[in-house]
């Protein structure tokens, strides 16, 4: 699926992010408020590959965290858009290269009031490439 032209009927529309800063382009499975599995293909034409790094293109780890956060936000399906408030335990285990399809799996670990915490991981062809925990504030907020 081309992330620049998402299916208007897909739950992706619940995400406030838009290209070029949408880092989920397919929802594979979702149990709202509990867990989600989503995917993002990092196309060789992504602009950041030109600088990260010249001659050695590599998806920045922070963008894998963004994948995790956006997937978690989709699982919450908050109409106002859940905002990233905290990142913990992020680990980047293998390089993600142009053309790789990242499958991100997140599950809700905790909730209190408007704040939710999801933990999860990113895989490429079954191999673990990153893991981490993201905390999101749902409803109106300033972080993010």
């Amino acid at each position, binding site marked *: 699926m081309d992330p620049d032209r998402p299916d208007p009927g897909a739950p992706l529309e619940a995400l406030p992010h838009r290209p070029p800063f949408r880092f989920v382009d397919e929802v594979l499975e979702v149990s709202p408020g509990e867990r989600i599995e989503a995917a993002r293909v990092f196309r060789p034409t992504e602009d950041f590959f030109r600088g990260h790094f010249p001659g050695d293109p590599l998806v920045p780890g922070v963008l894998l965290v963004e994948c995790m956060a956006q997937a978690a936000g989709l699982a919450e399906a908050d109409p106002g858009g859940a905002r990233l408030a905290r990142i913990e335990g992020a680990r980047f285990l293998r390089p993600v290269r142009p053309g790789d399809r990242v499958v991100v799996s997140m599950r809700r670990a905790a909730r*209190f*009031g408007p*704040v939710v915490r999801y933990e999860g991981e990113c895989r490429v062809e079954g191999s673990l490439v990153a893991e981490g925990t993201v905390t999101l504030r749902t409803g109106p907020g300033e972080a993010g």
Partner: protein
Amino acid sequence: MRSDLEDKVRDTIVRSLRLKKKPEELEADAPLFGGSLGLDSIDALELVLAIEREYGVRIQDDGVGREALRCVRGLVAFLEPRVGTDGPRPA
């Protein structure tokens, strides 16, 4: 006079929320959240998880839970019938 439980609760609050205060400097009745400590809803989740981890007690997201998180005294009053005045026993 403070109970052992209150001392432990103060320690839990300061440690889990990384406050730049000594446990004994927390005012028993001062609001934990939205007051001078500068704590917000993210910190509330952190404290809820710390209480669950250290005392084995879950604070629900309801009126009772919110009252428990109002101040040090509220948290002690909430925990006391659940863990006793000495606080949790070592596992």
